[in-house]
């Protein structure tokens, strides 16, 4: 009877959970070791740490295994685990000049101070299937590594720090500081708004402790994007550079490497290095704006956990897009002619609310999937409305 279907939940969900586990382990292959995921699927680990907002390679590898490779689920589990950890303090702000670089490039200048370092990248590889990998063995790997290092002279070590490409432009007065130094709000906002918002305490918003308010301080926007879902951010940034926006970016510099995490010693107050995190940083230069009578370039900034270049670049584009000179809300009604309509229509990627509210993978994935939950009551209520409206409009109700 119907009643059973409504009530029979407990056993069914327990069985489903067990069946889910079974599905992952039923094959004949060797159990996947967490260490293998960490070392051999490191880009996936980096992505999950970034979106999960917790720098923990071991745990990220674990959740990737547990979720059978679903990045949404994996980041979600990591984020939920994060909830259980107390906030012990804030690290000391760190300049990325001190980054231990493993890759840094500029697309704006051919020759940059310190030189371009290509590092590891698939950018210039041919995307042909490597059928050799079908029969991958430890012996093959060892012989490849031996061949790689055999007879190579020791290269000079990579310097500890590199000057920033952007600094060249900044020193020559070609760049506007698009952000108010006071509270990190976009400079395009009226002074009245900027003086009202922002955190008086430290000037830095903490999105894990406060919910977003708009206009959001730049620190809040940065944090929200740093843990945004890579695909969602790519979509919004792509919409801007393809046509629904006006950014036309150049990649001033992108670097990947390790930066130290420093905290104040609780007793002495001295800076103390507690570890390091791998990050990707992107700085984009965009078309100039007239500020104080003289035209200047503008800057967009992106930084995320791990090696995730697509995310860092899209973050920088969105950062710049949200600071557009006169951003119009998406909700603004377009005017009548197509030409005026295009000029007047707000671009989604330039609207802070639109961007920041919709790019979190854990929130968007959760809400989309919640439509799988029963909605018997609300649907019943809707049916009642529909029948009433049909009655009123004179349509004969068949029941």
């Amino acid at each position, binding site marked *: 009877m119907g009643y059973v279907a409504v009530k029979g939940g407990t056993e069914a969900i327990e069985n489903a959970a067990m069946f889910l586990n079974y599905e992952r382990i039923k094959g004949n292959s060797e159990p996947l070791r967490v260490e293998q995921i960490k070392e051999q699927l490191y880009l996936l680990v980096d992505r999950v740490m970034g979106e999960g907002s917790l720098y923990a390679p071991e745990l990220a590898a674990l959740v990737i295994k547990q979720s059978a490779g679903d990045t949404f689920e994996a980041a979600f589990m990591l984020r939920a685990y994060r909830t259980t950890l107390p906030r012990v303090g804030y690290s000391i702000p760190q300049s990325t000049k001190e980054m231990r670089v493993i890759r840094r490039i500029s697309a704006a200048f051919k020759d940059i101070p310190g030189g371009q370092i290509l590092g590891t990248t698939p950018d210039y590889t041919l995307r042909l299937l490597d059928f050799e990998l079908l029969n991958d063995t430890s012996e093959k790997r060892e012989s490849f590594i031996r061949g790689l290092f055999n007879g190579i002279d020791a290269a000079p070590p990579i310097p500890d720090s590199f000057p920033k490409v952007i600094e060249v432009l900044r020193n020559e007065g070609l760049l506007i500081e698009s952000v108010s130094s006071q509270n990190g709000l976009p400079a395009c906002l009226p002074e009245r708004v900027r003086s009202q918002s922002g955190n008086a305490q430290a000037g830095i918003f903490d999105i894990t402790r406060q919910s977003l308010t708009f206009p959001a301080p730049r620190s809040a926007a940065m944090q929200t994007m740093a843990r945004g879902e890579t695909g969602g951010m790519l979509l919004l940034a792509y919409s801007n550079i393809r046509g629904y926006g006006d950014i036309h970016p150049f990649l001033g510099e992108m670097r990947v490497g390790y930066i130290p995490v420093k905290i104040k010693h609780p007793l002495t107050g001295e800076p103390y290095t507690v570890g390091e995190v791998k990050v990707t940083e992107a700085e984009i230069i965009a078309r100039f704006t007239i500020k104080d009578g003289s035209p200047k370039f503008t800057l967009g900034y992106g930084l995320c956990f791990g090696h995730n270049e697509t995310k860092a670049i899209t973050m920088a584009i969105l950062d710049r897009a949200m600071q557009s000179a006169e951003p119009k809300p998406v909700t603004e009604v377009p005017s009548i002619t197509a030409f005026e309509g295009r000029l007047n229509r707000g671009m989604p990627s330039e609207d802070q609310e639109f961007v920041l509210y919709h790019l979190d993978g854990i929130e968007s994935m959760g809400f989309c999937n919640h439509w799988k939950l029963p909605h018997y009551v609300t649907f019943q*209520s809707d049916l009642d409305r529909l029948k009433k409206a049909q009655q009123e409009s004179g349509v004969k109700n068949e029941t």
Partner: protein
Amino acid sequence: MKLKEWIANKEHKDNIRHLSACNAQAEKSEVRHKFSGYNFAFIDEGSKREIRRKLLKAIAIPGYQVPFGSRELPIASGWGTGGLQITFSIIGTEDILKVIDQGCDGSVNAVNIKKLISKVAEVRTTIDTHEATIIQTRHRIPEERMREDQILVLQVPLPEALRRIEPSEVETRRMHAEADYSLMWLYLYEDIVKFKEISIASRYPVMVGGRYIMDPSPVPRWDVPKLHMADTLYLFGAGREKRIYAIPPYTKVEPLEFEDFKFRIEDFKGESCMRCGSKDTFLDEIIDDATGRRTYLCSDTGYCDKVLEGKEGKYYGD
């Protein structure tokens, strides 16, 4: 009874005291739990305390959405994380918990949430509305009238009642601040012009304390009158949207209506529950596979059981 009197009344201070007691308990000691590696009631004590502060603010400004730093939980956003964070923040070892989804204790999501809560905070659970001290619910308010010493925690997917007319949060916050609700009234009017009916079914907007338009969560129209001058504290949690709001006991809660176009609840046209025979409950419509015949069952299954056993509680209508 006025809200002020309710707070002043010693007997009814229990709920407020409960919130304060949780704070004190958290300060005194780290309440560790058997379930390895996790704090009692999952969330760390500092965060729970922050949520309780936001709850007190919400109670002080009935119907106003208080922003809070929502945390991620091991169930997905949109699946009751707002309600769950409230429950985790107010639950103590002596509480008796009931969880319902669509009115039903046995529904998959209710079972799942109850399982999580009992795993990280070993409390007694019940399916009896009268026995529970805290009831967490999705989409329904129990048929039995709840008491002053009980708390109903509602899971909220979309806390902004004005969202259907205005997508921007900046704008809706301004509208609330200025009590600028003309667009909402216009929406209802246009609905009547179009359909000769207000088409909003569940999530029917209400005016709280004559000040804020509030989303009562997706409860059916049937449950809206239960919010008015209730004996119980209603707490609303929207995790994904990071908002908490409340209706304290004995608060005026009025569905939006026109003098000449009154709010109406769902009409079951005299149908009754085929299991317990009730004619005064919200009914689920069941279509029989074989015959295609429509039958009806109580949506509130705990209540249905009670009526069947001949020990029903107090009706709202009484």
